């Protein structure tokens, strides 16, 4: 993949920037290329949505940014956070950043709090770890402050996790993530386990975060409605790669990549008359398809798509996509042979060869 030039924006530079980031993890079949050459940046106070089907690598990307990966996984490429080279920090330095500067909100709030510890103990532990010698009153004051923002009454400060509902526990998790005012938060499907009303509440809280905390947020979800509601920009991920990224409204109104288009078509809304779905299943990330990873399922696939990796190109205003078809309609010249529609049978034979 080629390194893309970044359109410098008017406000101060990005909080976090990934260049050709790869996160692979080990299995007995060989490495799974869960994140395979991904480049993007997040600015201060910005919410970047990350969408894609299950298993496309979006959770791995989120964890990879925080440095919270299972044994046997490895990161490669460049990852810069506020001028720090995250991939070349020691384990200890990375740990010190987690909590204070980098934080994570998880999918399952019910199991993320230690059942044997009171809420107060969770806050004390977090604050004491990162701010040595902090007084008990200070811990209490700051914890209650962030709990208030999340709408948890101070009377519940000394309760145990099991005494809270799912939605409240997710708000507790957010409070716990924010008590140290981190600059960058990854929220991995924070509302998937919650019911719709609570979901709306949590999304509102996340959306309003930047006002109170000036936090940048990577919001991982498979729900396009949430992106439209809460995010400034959106990145669409497929088979370990970001296929399209840009302003949320621009991407949703004028998708450049066929995958984004199909994804949008397959969502259900009030005006939906029939169900659309994308044929086939996401590819095996141990041995991803050649060329564009989406070509076996793509309705617009051309011969070139199966042979050469598409190039990540800016289609104006930082709206980037990696797709030969999009390039073609933007005026890129391709040979007759390259443009010919892909015949699926040929691929099957080629695959066997």
């Amino acid at each position: 993949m080629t390194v893309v030039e970044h359109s410098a924006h008017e406000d101060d530079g990005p909080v976090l920037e990934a260049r050709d980031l790869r996160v692979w993890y080990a299995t007995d079949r060989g490495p799974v290329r869960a994140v395979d050459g991904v480049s993007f940046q997040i600015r201060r106070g910005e919410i970047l949505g990350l969408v894609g089907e299950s298993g496309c690598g979006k959770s791995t990307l989120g964890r990879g940014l925080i440095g919270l990966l299972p044994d046997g996984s490895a990161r490669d490429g460049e990852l810069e956070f506020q001028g720090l080279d995250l991939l070349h920090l020691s384990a200890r330095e990375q740990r010190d950043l987690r909590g204070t500067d980098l934080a994570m909100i998880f999918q399952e709030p019910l199991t993320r709090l230690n059942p044997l510890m009171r809420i107060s103990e969770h806050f004390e532990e977090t604050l004491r770890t990162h701010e040595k010698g902090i007084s008990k009153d200070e811990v209490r004051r700051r914890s209650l402050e962030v709990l208030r923002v999340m709408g948890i009454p101070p009377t519940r400060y000394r309760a145990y996790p099991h005494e809270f509902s799912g939605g409240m526990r997710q708000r507790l998790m957010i409070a716990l993530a924010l008590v140290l005012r981190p600059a960058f938060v990854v929220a991995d499907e924070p509302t998937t386990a919650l019911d719709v009303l609570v979901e709306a509440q949590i999304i509102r809280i996340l959306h309003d975060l930047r006002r109170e905390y000036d936090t940048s947020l990577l919001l991982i979800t498979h729900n396009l409605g949430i992106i439209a509601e809460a995010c400034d920009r959106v990145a669409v991920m497929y088979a370990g790669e970001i296929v399209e990224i840009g302003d949320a409204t621009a991407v949703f109104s004028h998708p450049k990549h066929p995958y984004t288009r199909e994804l949008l078509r397959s969502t259900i809304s009030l005006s939906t008359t029939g169900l659309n779905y994308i044929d086939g299943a996401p590819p095996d990330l141990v041995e991803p398809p050649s060329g564009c990873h989406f070509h076996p399922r793509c309705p617009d696939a051309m011969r070139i798509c199966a042979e050469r990796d598409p190039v990540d190109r800016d289609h104006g205003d930082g709206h980037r996509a990696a797709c030969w078809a999009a390039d073609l309609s933007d005026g890129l010249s391709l040979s007759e042979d390259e443009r010919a529609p892909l015949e699926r049978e040929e691929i099957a034979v080629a695959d066997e060869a």
Partner: protein
Amino acid sequence: MSSGSGSGSLLKYIGIRVLLVIPMMWVLLTLVFILLRVAPGDPVTAAVGDKLSPAAIAQRQHQLGLDKPLIQQYVEYIGHVCRFDFGTTITDKEPVLTVIRDQGGATLTLTLGAFLFAVAVGVPLGRLAGRRRDTALDAGIRVFGVVTYAAPIFWVGIMLVALVIKFLPSWPTFGIASPVVAFEVPTKTHIMLVDAVLYGHGDAITDVLKHHVLPCFTLGLLLMGVIIRLVRVNVIQAMKGDYVEAARARGIKEGRVIRKHAFRNALVPVITVIGLQVALTLSGAVLTERTFNWPGLGTALITYLNGRDYIAVQGLVTFFAIVVVIVSVLVDIINALVDPRVRY
């Protein structure tokens, strides 16, 4: 500490748990009665039938109430047990409660000593194996666990005796005290170790303690195998816990993550299962006592079994059942104190 409602629900939980003992006890007592009174026939004939005339047997049966209808005997048995009356032995005409008082102390110090040793060594070893999973250290600790589990406790005891006799001939290998010490120390509590301490002579205390070492070590090894296995599996499982990852995401130091998040949560199921090992401990104690000629309840049980004294066996087995039930309640209460979810 805990809020008003919290301690209230804790008390309620304990209350319910204690009430549940009654049906449990009843089932066990009925089982014991059916097995040892209904199934085998007349206990007097079995025990002393060859020594007494039919008239004398009938008289003994009448004395012990064995000529009454079985259902009446059953009701009386339950009633007596409720008043801690476990019957009177046929062979030596002693109340079973006296036997328990005289010999229970030796079993108590043996099992407690073994238990403390097993927990003190087994928990850290299990934890280490769990943390260093799949390393040579883990493999070594696991093999040790399997071998201590696979080796019959009495064989381990015998081999230890053989070793000690060879390399440390002065070390005591049987009994709870040297005959002189046993004779000197006045009996107050019927617990030899406590009596020796009360007696106050350093030599006597050392002697009794020395006698405890081999049996406690042997019985402890049996429990240790179970504990190592259990702690290891639970630590591995707890390390995969969602809250452990969440704690790492907050930048909590690895040592603290393991101590406060993984290990503490791993211990909750461990407490329950260790508590269930009372049964195993009692089984092991019977064998250990026979191996080291230890004057405890296991030895008493074997003596009465060989004398075919059904009443004594029934009384002792009843007592064991009560101990098991009481300990299981205690374990549940400790569990509730440790884990706030239980009392919820």
